[in-house]
Every structure is written in C-alpha cells, then in structure tokens.
C-alpha cells in the first residue's frame, strides 16, 4: 500500500519514539554497569559513563554469583528437558488417542495454566517439607515442571494437530508400532514445536522468583533471581555492580531468544490467535 510522504514521516517518528521508550531503561542499565564506582552519583544523572570500565563485571562475577548461576542453569535445563519430554508424550496421546475422557482432560490442562502460584504455594511447600525436599534442586524442578507442563502440552498439542496424518497412517499400515511411529515420525516432525516450547519453558524458569524465594533457604541453593534480589541489600549503593549482575543474568536468555526467536514467536502466537 502506498503512503503519503507526510504519513510516512509521522510513522517513522513514532517508530523512533517507541524504540526510545523501550530501549532507554536498557541503555541506562548498561551505562551504569560500565560506570566507575563514583559516577552513578553524579546529579543530574548522566546518560553515558565518562570513563567506561568493565570493573563492575569483574567484581560482580564473584563466587556467590557463580553459585547462583550454576543453580539456575541446573534447575532450568533439567526443567526444560523434563517438561518438553513429558509434554510431548502427553500431547501425542492427547491428539492421537481414541479415549472418551480426552476432551475433559484437555479442559483440565487449560484450566491448570491459570492457577495462581501464590494461592497454591503453601500446600506445595508443606508437601516438599514432608518429603524433605526443601532447599534442594528437586523442590524447584518438580514445581517448575508442574507449572510449565500445562502450557507446554497446550503449545505442543496445537503443533501436533497440524501435522499431516498421512505419514503416520502409512507407517502404521506398514506395521510400525505406535511407539515406532512416535519416535521415527512424530518426534522429528515436531522439531520446531519442541524448540518453541523449550524456549518458552526456559524463559519462564530462568526468571522464576516466587517458588525459588520460598523453597530455598541457603546461599548455596539460591537461583539467580533470588540472589539478585538479595544483592539489593548487600550491594547497598554499589549500583554499578548491581546493574552489571543484572546484565549478566539477562544475557543467556536474551541470546537464546535471539537465535530461536522465529520458532518462539510462531509457537506463542499460534495458540493465542487460532485458539
């Protein structure tokens, strides 16, 4: 569609404005993280460091931070692998099984996506306490797998519904067992859906705060979001280090997202727009 020059100019200005609104806080975060210790206290605040340094990153990457990072990595990766595996198995049966109760079960999965975590956390906490799992990786992995599974099943189900049935049918006629069909045909064809789901689960788990805050009690078990929240008090007014830590917490998910953006956007919007 052709646009008038004046219209184009207005639209371009709005684009620039939008980019500024979104980027200004990021710019500020990176800028402060590069400022030597006294510069954040300049009044009025300066947008760009006069003497940029990576010193804050060096001092923020201390042993505690590395522990939190490792904990987040272990918990997130375990959750991604378990959720995507269980989610694909369930989604496969949800879309292929001839079972009367299926649509009711799908309804329960959709409903479970909307449960408020804060309202169910106390019974979960008590179960973890009885099972002696508090302050372990397992308490977090179990909680994260459970809360991400409903959305994962939903995303993968939407994806599997769109796969052509012909391939699976002909394989079945050739005598392949359902498990063979699943492994040789469904899994390879589901790759884009699996990637989208894995990215979604990773983004959710990497930033999860409420369960991690409630279930971990020692520094050895803290994950990055909780550790970062602790830093607010510990760093006091060392804003440079706080911002440097924030950048380092954000970078891994941002990197994953940028490489796999295409899959993720398709996965999220498919469910939301098409139902």
């Amino acid at each position, binding site marked *: 569609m052709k646009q008038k020059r004046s219209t184009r100019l207005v639209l371009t200005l709005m684009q620039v404005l939008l980019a500024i609104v979104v980027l*200004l*806080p990021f710019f500020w975060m990176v800028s402060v993280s590069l400022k030597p210790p006294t510069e954040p206290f300049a009044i009025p605040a300066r*947008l760009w460091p006069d003497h940029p340094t990576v010193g804050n990153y060096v001092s923020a990457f201390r042993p505690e931070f590395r522990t939190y990072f490792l904990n987040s990595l272990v918990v997130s990766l375990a959750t991604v692998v378990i959720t995507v595996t269980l989610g694909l198995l*369930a989604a496969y049966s949800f879309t292929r099984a001839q079972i009367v109760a299926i649509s009711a079960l799908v309804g329960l999965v959709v409903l479970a996506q909307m449960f408020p975590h804060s*309202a169910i956390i106390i*019974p979960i906490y008590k179960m973890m306490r009885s099972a002696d799992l508090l302050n372990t990786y397992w308490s977090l992995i179990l909680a994260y797998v459970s809360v991400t599974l409903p959305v994962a099943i939903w995303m993968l189900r939407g994806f599997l519904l769109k796969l052509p049935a012909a391939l699976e049918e002909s394989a079945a006629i050739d005598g392949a067992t359902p498990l063979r069909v699943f492994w040789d045909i469904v899994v390879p064809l589901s790759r884009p859906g699996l990637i989208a789901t894995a990215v979604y689960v990773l983004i959710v788990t990497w930033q999860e705060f409420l369960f991690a805050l409630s279930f971990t009690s020692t520094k050895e078990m803290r994950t990055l*979001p909780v550790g970062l929240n602790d830093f607010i008090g510990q760093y006091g007014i060392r804003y440079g280090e706080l911002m440097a830590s924030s950048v380092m917490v954000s970078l891994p998910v941002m990197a994953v997202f940028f490489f796999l953006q295409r899959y993720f956007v398709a996965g999220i919007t498919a469910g939301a727009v098409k139902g």
Partner: protein
Amino acid sequence: MRKDRRLHWLLLAPALILMAVMLYYPMFGTVYESFHETSFLSPDPKFAGLALYRRIVADRTFAEVVVNSIVWTFGVVLLQNILGFLTALLLNQNLPMQGVLRAIVLLPFILPGVVAAILWRFMYDPQLGLVNSLLLQTGLIENSVAWLADSRMAMASVIVAAVWKGFPFSMLIYLAALQNVDQSQIEAATLDGAGPTRRLLDVTLPAIRDVIVVNVVLTLILTFNYFDIIWVLTRGGPQSATHIFPTKIYETGFGQFRFGEAATYGVFSILVLAVLVALYAIVQGRANRRRGVA
C-alpha cells in the same frame, strides 16, 4: 486398539499425575489450610473454623488489598493492551526496519522479571534515578518525587514498570492477528474510498474483535497473579499501598509463617480467579463457535 489405548494412558500418566499432585491437590489443600491456624510460635495447625475468614475480612488491610488488586489489574491490563495494540498497528505498516523494531520491542518481555524490577527501582530512585533527572531537566516537575516511597505515587509507578515489561506480549498477539486479517477486504474498503481510520474501525477491528477480548481476559488473569515486579519494587509498601493478593499471601505465609491466614487470602484470590476463568471460558467459547471450530 485396546493395546493402543493402554499405551496412550501410559504416555499421559506422568503429566497427569504430576498436575494432579502439584496443581490440583494444592488447590484443595489451600482451602483446607484456610480452616487451620498456624503461627511462628505454634507451627502445629489447629482447627479454626471460619475464624481466619472473620479476622481477615475485619482487618483494614484486606479492603486495601482488594482495592489495590483492582486498580493494579485493570490499570496494567488497560494500558498494556492499548499500548500493545497501537504498537502492533505501527509494526504492521509497510515501513523499513520492521523486523529489527519488533525484536527491540520484545526485549522487555524476555528480560527476567526481577531484573526489570531492579532496573525500575533504580530508575525511580529520587536522587540518582533517570526518571527524576529527565523530568527535572525538562521542567515537567520542579522537585524530586519519591516515586516508590510516596503512597500516592507508588501504585502508579509499579503499574508503569509492569506495563513496560508486559506490553510486548500483547503486541505480539495483536500483530499476529493483524497479519491474519483478510487483505482483500481491506483493499475492497480502500476502493470504496475508506480512509485509514474507517478501514481500522470497519474492517480490521471487527475482524480481530475476538482476539482482543480473549487477550484482555488472559492478561487480566496473568496480571492478577503477578508477584515479581511489586515484590521487588515495594514489597507491597509503603504501608500497604501496593499490596496485592500474591504479595500479601507471600508476606503472611513466608514472612510471618501464618500459613492459615495466607491460605485464607489464597482462597479469596482463587474465588476472584474463578470468575475471571469463567469469563475466559465464555469469550473463548464464543470466539471458537464464531470461527466454526469445536
């Protein structure tokens, strides 16, 4: 067929059992807890009947939490959806750099919630923050404002931070819906002499009405449940000016170890959610019927 069915139940079992134990059972568990009292000094639950409900409803903070939750939820949802929709319209024009701009706009959405909250906490700092600096330099305010410490400004401030973090999600959904609108209808309207505003109101909006309604209800649910931003920015303060259900539940349960009262707050929030979820089911069902899908 029979053997297939057994296999399918086997594949479903792990997910279903996990969801039953970790999501559905705790829903009922919360109701059970709300009838039992515990405290830091006496951690063994004692049956309390409806005493906790009476105590909480009589407490002044309960009314505050209810009002705050309403202001927070509607404030964030309204602004996030309007901003998300306008951004989607802008990104749906034929302009250069749209791909880059979309990637930029998505940044706050991927940014971990705690990081976003810490970043905004610093932005709002009365002396060192960028918000006051910019507003003072441009003369929009004359004195520094304590955005998070002033009980009249705190709620508006956390809402702005949450909208900044949340609008990309709404944008993404609306952009996908806009790209699905039948182009021939828009061209037909153009040939009939309809300008951009007429085309938006007469063709585009009716075409994506269902997506808008469903998305608004979905963001109502997500926002009502959102804990991270408020907890890191204000912990529900000053006093209780920004306490919403999730922050109040966490503080009561894990700050004061009053699990019974926390669960009672939880039951109230489940009731609110039940209404929203019913609304979601209605609008989603209507949207599906209109599209002719079961």
